């Protein structure tokens, strides 16, 4: 199960990467099944497209006049399919996966002819059940893995099973008759390879290796029992292509390869190249491209694509070996290539314009219009004014045209400027090829593009500074604004610098909750607002006094914080404490007075 999960994860990522560039190779008599979320799939298109295999089969079955086949695009299909005599073919065997529970494919009617091919079946009770299907039915070029029973035949008098891989199932094939089973590979099946009660003569040209039991006594002139030497059977993304030297190469009936990638109907798209990285020689500006070699014995080489646009098109020019792509045809062993001669010159980028700031609590949201030729931007900020000749140390480099500056102080004005940076960057992808004749990745004889790697060449150039703007962060405001908008705490605001300072807010909250709620407190507030502005104006005019005033206000701020921020229980305990002290003092004074009067009150 872990294997299928990993496989699906990798598959999903690869499909998203490739969905935008998938070429159309549909024939007129095909109906497409494609469950990719990025595909534009509609029954009204040509060819018709459905998001489930069963819907495509139903459409093909209902059609009159034309015999349609169903082509299944790469994807993970969690379905239980009834075949209805329709030929179903996956576009890429390893990446077209049918999984789920119960029986994945039922082909059990007497008239279910056709074939099912180039699919991977995983994790269910039964992969294909052809019980009672007496029509000519072919199961070919599939991979069966993790199934309790991969293929079940009973009364399936004309079913043939060829060029499949049965890996790590319980029972690979269960049959009550001597059916044609050829060119298959049975590896590591945990119950048995073939379970049958029949005397068999048609089980030929197969490879049985490392199964709990083979289940049949097969003749040894054509069947073998050798390690098939798959590329990576047990990997998270299994690869059942054959490596060079595999005993299954050309040893099948008709001198074809055994397994899912042999015979005339195999898919012809190599596995994607993985592990692509780039490194730069800063002296020569040579870019070394490295990847993990694909040991599939059919791989004759690789193509290295390069360009200046991320995601393609990879239409780079200027490398000494030629324009993109560069073909390497020295076999599977290649895993590096040096791109040399790439130009490192870069023009000065334009100047970012329309720099804007949106203040938030202790942060500023910045945005600006992109500058021509920019590959990134430097954002500068300071509490002092600056220009291009006196850039501040507070800066950050970003790839996008927006940035949030955080950790700022509310009420403090900040100066902000942005400059564009230009760097000669190249983006590289690698494909594996079976032949040099085809040049469309993912169509035939060439794999899909690998994941992209990038590198910057040479130095970078910083453009002119944008217009420097100023703004200050400020606390957000709730709706409705229930924080008092009444007259300011003039003196505190003047002393602490700004209206939303925590100390000022504490005093304001104390005023609203404890002073304005009673007549005496309200009278004091009225008196304060009558005289406070005079004092505040004096403090504003004499900033040197601000620290003194702040210190003088601290006890009031402390009381305000205590009264507004501590739970009622704490306040009650403290009040009780002071009440007890007051009672003790009163008691003490009373006794003192009593003793002074000689005990007479």
């Amino acid at each position: 199960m872990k294997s299928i999960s990993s496989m699906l994860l990798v598959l999903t990522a690869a499909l998203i990467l490739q969905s935008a560039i998938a070429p159309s190779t549909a024939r007129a008599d095909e109906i497409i099944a494609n469950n990719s979320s990025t595909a534009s799939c509609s029954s009204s298109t040509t060819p018709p497209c459905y998001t489930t295999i069963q819907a495509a089969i139903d459409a093909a079955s209902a059609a009159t006049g034309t015999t349609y086949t169903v082509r299944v695009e790469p994807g993970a299909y969690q379905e239980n399919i009834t075949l209805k005599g329709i030929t179903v073919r996956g576009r890429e065997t390893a990446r077209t996966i049918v999984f789920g529970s119960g029986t994945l494919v039922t082909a059990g009617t007497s008239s279910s002819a056709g074939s099912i091919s180039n699919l991977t079946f995983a994790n269910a009770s039964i992969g294909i059940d052809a019980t009672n299907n007496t029509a000519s039915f072919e199961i070919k070029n599939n991979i069966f893995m993790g199934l309790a029973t991969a293929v079940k035949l009973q009364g399936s008098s004309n079913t043939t099973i060829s060029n499949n891989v049965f890996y790590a199932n319980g029972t690979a094939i269960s049959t009550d008759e001597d059916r044609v089973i050829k060119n298959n590979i049975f590896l590591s099946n945990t119950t048995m390879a073939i379970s049958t009660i029949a005397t068999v003569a048609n089980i030929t040209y197969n490879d049985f290796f490392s199964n709990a039991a083979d289940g049949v006594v097969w003749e040894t002139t054509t069947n073998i029992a050798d390690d098939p030497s798959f590329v990576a059977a047990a990997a998270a993304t299994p690869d059942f292509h054959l490596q060079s030297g595999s005993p299954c190469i050309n040893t099948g009936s008709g001198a074809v390869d055994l397994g899912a990638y042999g015979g005339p109907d195999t898919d012809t798209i190599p596995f994607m190249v993985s592990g692509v990285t780039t490194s730069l020689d800063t002296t020569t500006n040579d870019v070394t491209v490295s990847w993990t070699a694909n040991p599939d014995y059919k791989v004759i080489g690789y193509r290295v694509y390069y360009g200046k646009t991320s995601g393609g098109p990879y239409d780079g020019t200027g490398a000494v070996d030629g324009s993109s792509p560069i073909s390497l045809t020295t076999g599977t062993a290649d895993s590096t290539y040096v791109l040399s001669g790439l130009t490192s010159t870069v023009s000065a980028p334009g100047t970012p314009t329309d720099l804007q700031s949106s203040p938030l609590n202790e942060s500023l949201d910045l945005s600006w219009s992109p500058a021509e030729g920019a590959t990134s931007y430097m954002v500068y900020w300071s509490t002092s004014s600056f220009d291009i000749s006196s850039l501040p140390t507070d800066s950050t480099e970003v790839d996008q045209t927006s940035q949030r500056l955080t950790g700022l102080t509310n009420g403090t004005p900040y100066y902000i400027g942005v400059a564009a940076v230009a760097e000669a960057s190249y983006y590289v992808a690698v494909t594996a090829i079976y032949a040099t004749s085809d040049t469309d990745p993912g169509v035939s004889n060439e794999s899909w593009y690998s994941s992209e790697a990038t590198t910057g060449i040479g130095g970078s150039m910083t453009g002119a500074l944008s217009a420097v703007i100023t703004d200050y962060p400020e606390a957000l405001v709730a709706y409705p604004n229930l924080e008092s908008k009444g007259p300011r705490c003039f003196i505190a605001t003047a002393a602490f610098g700004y209206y939303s300072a925590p100390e000022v807010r504490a005093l304001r909250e104390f005023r609203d909750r404890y002073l304005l709620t009673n007549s005496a407190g309200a009278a004091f507030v009225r008196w304060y607002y009558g005289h406070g502005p005079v004092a505040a104006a004096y403090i504003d005019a004499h900033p040197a006094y601000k620290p003194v005033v702040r210190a003088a206000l601290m006890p009031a701020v402390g009381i305000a914080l205590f009264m507004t921020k501590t739970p009622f229980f704490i306040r009650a305990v403290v009040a009780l404490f002071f009440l007890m002290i007051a009672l003790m003092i009163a008691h003490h004074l009373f006794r003192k007075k009593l003793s002074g009067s000689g005990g007479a009150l």
Partner: protein
Amino acid sequence: MKKILLLLLTLAVPAASYAEEQLLTLPSWSLELKGGTFAPALDNWAQYYGRKDMPEYAVTLAYKVLRQLEFGVGVGAARDRGQAYAPLHSAAAGQAYLAGSVSTKLYPLNVFVLARGIISENQWVVPYIGAGWTRMYYRQTVDEQGGEVRGSADGYHVRGGLQLCLDGLDESAANNMYTDYEVYHTYLFIEVEKTQAKVKSLSVELGGTAYLTGLLFEF
């Protein structure tokens, strides 16, 4: 409209099957458990909170001075989460932009008098109206900004609705409610409540219109 009024009058008439049943004593208290939606009167609520109303739950307890008149007290709770708006210094007039999250909670405390149009203990539908004093407590926080704004505003409320007696649906259950819990009657009711409670120092109206439904137990 006439048909509806006629139907209500018909329902208000005691059912024949209950007309002969007379309770020896009458209930003195009523307990309401209710819930519904509260739509604040503030015009821009939906702009900041995504919708124009919020869930409200309330409970009231009333003493019956007369069968048709009761005094009581009730408390409710309504809470909504939405977005705050960015500092006023950056926004053009009327163009404040949303940022951050805000939580606003309202807890209305109502003291009320309520009149019920009941003429028989077995009346199926009982209309009622009520009014009273309201103190609207509020709590408000802006996430990750610290400090909870608290306060209250005084005002009034009026409400009205219909109570549907459930006793007739299952007489044995109604009898059990009486014998086990001394609940004389159980009503399903719907009501509309309009509240005004203005924070005078801020000129912010915290009242609104509530549409509530619930169960009323008389005991």
